[in-house]
């Protein structure tokens, strides 16, 4: 098991190296030109923007030198300064990490706590009303654009019924609330965002769980379990479920890029102060250092997610743990 983990860590290094190269390549498209939007608005501003770009990326030097300089700064966590308010990019990102990671973790939790039992029930009552209902729900939810769903739910619950807050992380007079009330207030604000961000995951994981269980129930070792006289419940929950859960574990790790991508939309719509909203603002303001930092961070979180998925899969599946 240990050498499996070491191999995975070693395997990560070339990937991270590749990530830094691709990130740098993407961003190096920028300094040479600036978008037509700025030029139309005010030539003086764009000249100033160009000069700042040169300084931020020492454009005079050849590409590979620029890359190593950037990499050196990256390693020292000196991600440069934001064009918008000149604050260090690292600080701006750090203060927003808890919100995004929190919401994504919550929605992952919701997805797994709900989708797995739903998948199991749909599998055990295959073809029944519950099974078809979840099938239709999943199919439609996979086709619904997440931002549109958010708009519809905001219209219904926030405006029409007024049950839920329309945006933000907490109410106006949040600072005067006692701790418990603060917690409830944040929770109240997060109901809609977490639901919307977990809908796609619910649809995918519940269908995946259902087919994974159905497949496990057809495996030969199920006959052995039945032949030993074990009751249906034990055969399902001990023998079939444990095998069916194996692929689900990796899905958790692999869904991180999707969640991060989605947070750009949710945090903009619900005005939540997270990495996604910051990224959106940076893109609108062409804040190159901040964009670069977020792209690399996004990749790092994804690589970490894949690593966690790999290791947790090895823990769960003895065939990998004991090669």
């Amino acid at each position, binding site marked *: 098991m240990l050498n499996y983990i070491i191999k995975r860590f070693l395997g990560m290094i*070339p*990937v991270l190296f*590749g*990530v830094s*190269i*691709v*990130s740098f390549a*993407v*961003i190096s*498209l*920028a300094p040479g030109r600036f*978008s*037509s*939007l700025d030029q139309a608005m005010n030539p003086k501003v764009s000249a100033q923007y160009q000069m700042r770009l040169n300084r931020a990326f020492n454009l005079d030097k050849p590409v590979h030198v620029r890359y190593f300089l950037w990499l050196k700064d990256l390693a020292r966590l000196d991600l440069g300064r934001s064009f918008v308010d000149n604050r260090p990019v690292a600080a701006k990102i750090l203060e927003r990490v808890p919100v995004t990671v929190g919401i994504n973790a919550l929605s992952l939790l919701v997805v797994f706590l709900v989708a797995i039992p739903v998948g199991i029930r749909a599998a055990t009552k295959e073809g029944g009303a519950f099974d078809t209902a979840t099938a239709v729900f999943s*199919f*439609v939810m*996979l*086709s*619904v*654009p*997440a*931002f*549109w769903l958010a*708009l*519809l739910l*905001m*219209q219904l619950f926030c*405006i*029409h019924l007024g049950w839920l807050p329309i945006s933000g992380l907490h109410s106006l007079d949040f600072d005067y609330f006692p701790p418990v009330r603060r917690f409830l207030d944040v929770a109240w604000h997060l109901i809609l965002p977490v639901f919307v961000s977990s809908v796609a995951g619910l649809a995918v994981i519940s269908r995946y769980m259902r087919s994974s269980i159905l497949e496990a129930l057809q495996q030969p070792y199920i006959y052995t379990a039945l032949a030993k006289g074990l009751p249906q419940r034990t055969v399902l929950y001990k023998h079939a479920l444990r095998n069916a859960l194996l692929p689900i574990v990796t899905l958790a790790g692999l869904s*991180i*890029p*999707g969640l*991060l*991508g*989605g947070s*750009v*939309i949710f945090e*903009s*719509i619900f005005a939540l102060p997270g990495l996604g909203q910051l*990224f*959106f603002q*940076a*893109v*609108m303001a*062409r804040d*190159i250092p901040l*964009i*670069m930092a*977020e*792209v690399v961070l*996004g*990749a790092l979180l*994804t*690589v970490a997610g*894949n690593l966690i998925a790999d290791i947790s899969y090895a823990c769960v599946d003895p065939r990998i743990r004991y090669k």
Partner: protein
Amino acid sequence: MKDNPYLFWGLAIILMLSATALFAPLISPFDPSSIDSQGLLMAPCARHPLGTDGLGRDLLSRMIYGARISLSVGIIAVGISILLGLILGSCAGFYGRIADALIMRFADIMLCFPTFFLILAVIAVVEPSIYNIMIVIGLTSWMGPARLIRGEILSLKEREFIQAERALGASDARIIIRHLVPNAVGPVLVNATLGIAGAILLESSLSFLGLGVQPPVPSWGNILIESKSTLGIAWWITVFPGLAILITILGFNFIAEGLKKIIG
């Protein structure tokens, strides 16, 4: 066809949509950018079956032209990603360990980036035009098809009927055309259909954020920008474009489901 409802309804939706997009100028009641001065934010009525937007433009016409954008972005973006996937995937699958290791490591690296982050980053540095979006979506979604095609080739290469063909003296080209392609086309087609649905979703999300197709060119995504400000007032601006996106993606998902049944 009848015993495969998914495929039937999926094709019906997409064909109707393609017709709408193709004959947009003929069937659209108004020019998408013509302004009806008395009809600002009009609810659906005889003149404007789907109502008008804040500038008095007919929503139905804008959505009909929007269909063009969504379909063309979806199809061309996926065309690029499938093409790239085909080239890189077959190289990895066919030409042995080094090519395989390099291409697959490159795919792993690209897969590390949340696609939406990568696309937004590129759009931040390149003008957000419909062509750039197609290319960017295409360049950031080739990894799935590449892995699929590589997997198909590797699994087929081991199959005995390919070995038998080689023993018969068939050339590589003949084996690829006569055996690899017919067996791999099914899964690739399913992947492409799902890819189009994904690309349309991406384009509309980008346009909704103002980073996709730039107004005044109508796309379902950028029509919805206005819905944020007219939430409580004009329900039709939120409902109809979103519904169009939903039905389109549903159509492609139906086709994918139907194809899966056929290839078994």
